[in-house]
């Protein structure tokens, strides 16, 4: 699954650690998602979208 998480995170001036803290996961998980080595669960995808006040499909798209 492709994602634009790094762009959203940088636009909001957040570090991976900040975002991880905000959505309740480890920094390594955010890093793995951004590098497209891990697909988040629906719950985490919704949490990320909610944090950026957007929709899941704004952040993620099928590869």
């Amino acid at each position, binding site marked *: 699954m492709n994602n634009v998480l790094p762009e959203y995170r940088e636009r909001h001036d957040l*570090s991976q*650690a*900040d975002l*991880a*803290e*905000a959505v*309740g*996961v*480890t*920094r*390594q*998980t955010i890093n*793995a998602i951004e590098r497209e080595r*891990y697909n*988040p*669960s629906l*719950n*985490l995808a919704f949490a990320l979208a909610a944090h950026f006040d957007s929709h899941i499909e704004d952040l993620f798209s099928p590869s």
Partner: protein
Amino acid sequence: MAIHNSHRTEWNRLLFFGLLAAAFIAMLGLMISGFPAVAAVAFFILVGTATVLRGIDDSMFDERDTEIVRIASSNTIAVLSFSSAIFFPTMALLTALGYTEWPRWLSIISVFDATLFVVWVSTLLLARYHR
């Protein structure tokens, strides 16, 4: 603040795995040294401390860790399945034909392997029943 918490979580993860490694090493070392009671006490203390640490910091592991554990467990079951379905029957056949001997230690491993496989099938059926 967030960065501080993230660093604390990473430190706790390292501490957790360090405690488990120390428990394993202490258990093995003290058993070999001839102190089984001390080995057991050291093991319980170290594993207990790790368990308490995990209880205190519930953000230490997340869904990706769960996924990694699931993959590792799946691979372990694949190894068990291979040994149950191919290795041990082949060894039994070769032993029956006189090409090799079946050592006692292999019997112990095969029974352990088969028992684990039965446990896995049981938990699989239980999981299916609840879904």
